[in-house]
């Protein structure tokens, strides 16, 4: 297991500086939250880590080795898995075929198949023969996380996994993230639900305009909303 380090990252979309000198680390067995308003640069940071956004400065390293300039699929195969915003599951394929695609990013042999993710998400096991498009939004989100985990990554990135989910399902997803942390992964969680993220994460960074504004620990969860509002005003 390796540490993901983002160091003075600069991302620019044309004239827009989406991320400005952002630095943080995500170590194994750790959840780091990234919260902030729309357009703060959260998604740009994730895309930059995956080699899918124009990085104009700084560095992204995994276990000390730079990921910059590498192809998206090679970064995935190096041990970084992204659960993208909107889940992006293959609706025309079956649930099991979606999981099999996750194997593309797995290093080494076939390991233990899908047993671990089936244990984590029983619903995915139950519906494995169905068309993925027939699943509900919450089930699709569980499938998207399961598909990322099949690759047995060192680092799991999630882009707003609770978006559009019923509260009961958000509980399922957040419980799963806690279990994933226990298994030793480094988890970077981009979220809009500030309070829940701060409560779950080991550290949460509040960013706005591409810059780090505030670092919160789990103890700050009680008062998060007021704190965040104050800093983003």
């Amino acid at each position, binding site marked *: 297991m390796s540490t993901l380090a983002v160091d003075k990252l600069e991302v620019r979309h044309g004239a827009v500086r989406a991320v400005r000198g952002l630095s943080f680390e995500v170590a194994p067995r750790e959840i780091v939250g990234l919260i902030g308003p729309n357009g703060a640069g959260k998604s740009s940071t994730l895309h930059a880590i995956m080699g899918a956004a124009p990085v104009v400065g700084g560095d992204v390293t995994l276990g000390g080795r730079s990921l910059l300039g590498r*192809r998206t*699929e090679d970064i995935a195969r190096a041990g970084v898995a*992204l659960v993208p915003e909107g889940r992006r599951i293959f609706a025309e*394929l079956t649930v099991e075929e979606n999981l099999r695609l996750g194997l593309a*990013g797995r290093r080494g042999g076939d390991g233990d198949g899908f047993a671990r993710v089936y244990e984590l998400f029983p619903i995915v096991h139950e519906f494995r023969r169905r068309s993925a498009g027939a699943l509900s939004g919450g089930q699709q989100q569980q499938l998207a996380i399961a598909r*990322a985990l099949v690759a047995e990554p060192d680092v799991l990135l999630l882009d707003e996994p609770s978006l559009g989910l019923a509260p009961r399902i958000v509980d399922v997803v957040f419980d799963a993230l806690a279990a994933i942390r226990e298994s030793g992964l480094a988890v970077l969680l981009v979220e809009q639900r500030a309070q829940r993220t701060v409560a779950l994460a080991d550290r949460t960074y509040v960013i706005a305009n591409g810059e780090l504004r505030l670092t919160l620990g789990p103890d700050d969860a009680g008062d998060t909303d007021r704190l965040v509002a104050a800093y983003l005003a």
Partner: protein
Amino acid sequence: MTLAVLNIDWQTLADALALGGIYALMAVGIGLVFGVLRLVNFAYGQLIMAGAYALAFASQWDLPRWVGILFCFGVVLALSVAMDLLVFRPLRTQSPAVMLVATFAIAFLLQSIALLAFGPLGKIASSLAPLNRPVTISGVDIRKIAIVSIVVAVVCLLLLQLLLTRTAVGLQMRAASLDFGTARLLGVRANRVIGGAVLVSGVLAAVVAVMLTVQNPLVTPDFALRDTIVVLAGVVLGGLNRPIPATLGGFSIGFASGLLGGALPTNQSQYLPTFLFAAVILVLLVRPNGLFTRRQQAERV
């Protein structure tokens, strides 16, 4: 001029099924590459032309039949891989229009090379000619190649289905044609998937080259050009986005073409493409998303 009365016999039906099968294979070959590259490869017919020349030279050199077929596969596959490495790969990030024009250029280039090197009169591929003779099945004469084409087309389509559903690279090809960006996020290697699709498409081109050369042993620089245009119409007719509709489109237009070609009197068969393309235009006016796509599917794309 009146439309000829259709008198369809068993032989015409067999020939039409065979042509449908061959066109279905071409449609799949074009559709596979379109799926992963969003590119209609207009040079597909020239791959088949190159394979046909390989067969013609093999029979000129008196090589055994199976060596000639192997030579044909070798030439077509080498050309497919070269096309991927030299043209598709460097141009992949360009707009679809650039790639489309590039495949036009390759098509004309290959055709011109054939014209310069082998002359306009063409070569005869005679070694496979015996397959063109008929066998008599319960009183009906059917050309052997018709039977061979139908069987080969069915076997190829079944093997392809197995490849696409049962193997990792096949699944990755399907995923890539649905959403390449997400597939790459999961670690699917773009070069491998595209290379695989180009290679499978090349194998199909080689199979088609053998079948068409048996039917039409005179190999000229414009060999398979007309077939490719008809198949492209068929692929559009069926729906370009999905392999199965594209295959059905290719089969339908080949079958219709064979049936009409056999039924029309010889002096009217020159108008056959006109009728076919008129039919394609009519169908697309009524069903712009293609004949074999479900409405809901087409809207999502």
